[in-house]
């Protein structure tokens, strides 16, 4: 099975979990953001063009299922991907702790970017406080989920053995 197909399977599974099963059992901010973890993973190990496109798509899909601002997460995910991808060569990316830390920081950045965009373009004042207060716990949950992902996910292991 080639890498692209494996990526596709992981993305589809994460997407299904993200938009169907997780909301049924977990509430924000304790619901992990699997799509963002994939973006982080791709940022460290993926290619620039394909990764950018997938990150943007994942962000837009996320926007379709959460909130009413299409493009909010699209922009944030793309920004996070580009940032990570351009700094990845400075780190030892096979280290799974880096991935966990990356997931945590990416969550913080995602929250701040969303907050910034909302402040810039919309007048939804009531959303700022829940968004801000949820950034830290969601970052921890995402870090935990990322550690599990990199401990058990076959794709992550395959990449590590590379």
């Amino acid at each position, binding site marked *: 099975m080639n890498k692209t197909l494996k990526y596709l399977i992981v993305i589809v599974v994460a997407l299904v979990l993200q938009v169907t099963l997780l909301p049924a059992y977990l509430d924000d901010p304790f619901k992990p953001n699997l799509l963002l973890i994939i973006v982080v993973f791709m940022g460290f190990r993926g290619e620039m063009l394909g990764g950018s496109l997938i990150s943007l798509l994942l962000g837009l899909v996320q926007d379709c299922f959460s909130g009413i601002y299409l493009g909010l997460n699209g922009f944030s995910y793309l*920004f996070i991907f580009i940032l990570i991808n351009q700094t990845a060569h400075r780190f030892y990316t096979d280290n799974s702790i880096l991935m966990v830390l990356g997931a945590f920081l990416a969550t913080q950045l995602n929250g701040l970017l969303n907050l910034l965009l909302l402040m810039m373009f919309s007048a939804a004042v009531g959303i700022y406080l829940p968004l801000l207060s949820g950034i830290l716990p969601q970052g921890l949950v995402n870090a935990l989920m990322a550690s599990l992902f990199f401990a058990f996910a076959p794709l992550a292991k395959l990449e590590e053995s590379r």
Partner: protein
Amino acid sequence: MAEFNNKYRFYIFAGVALFAVMIFYSLNLRERNHANVFERGVLNLMAPVNRTASRINNFCFSLWTDYLYLVEVRKENHQLLEVTKSQNTRLIEAQDALLANERLKKILELKHAVDTPSLVASVIGEDHSPSFSIFIDRGEADGLREGMPVVAAGGVVGQVVKVASNSARVLLLTDSASAITGTVLRSRARGVVKGKEAGLCSLEFALRDEDVNVGDIIVTSGMGGIFPKGLPIGEVTTVNKGEYRIFQTVDVRPAVNLPRLEEVLILLKHHE
């Protein structure tokens, strides 16, 4: 220029992409309450997945809640069983008390009806073989003596035969050693009621010509000085007169249900 493009190509690309997305985002803000083509496409694509996941969710959820419900039901079932047991016990006790009350009431009525000093005793044991007798919880200390008549609400039970200080034995009228003079209530025909096998009695020495029919009630005749007159002994079940015999054969079923006796009345005074 080409060198500039190569050096800053990535930054240009990233900047343009991010700017484009930001423009896309800002343009969508106007129509944020309406789904555009992309959103509709994604939602349509994910709808069957959502439906399936929702079914799986519901199944898991119902499985879990059913399991919890079953656990609760099991606990509740145990509690209800305990309550039912306790209430059944109380119900049985109440029914028993009610029956005892009825029996004692009958005994009391009998005690008032019999113009003789008497004593109520409870049956504490029974002996079916070789003689038919019962044990009662009254004895010499209560004034009991051998030969005293014992009756119950339905009629004659037997006679006191062995008396200890606090208990006594009563020879039932169905014992072969028992003999009580009786009279047919309807025709006044006389005889001696003796014990027979299988919990029955027979009316002995009733002359062949005496008028005895099936269904006749036999009562004590008062002769012999033991039982007062008129106490029911039993009911005639079969009559066999024969052709050449002096006495007829009469089977009598005791008036009292002897195997189920619980309280009896001992008549303390001999009727001599």
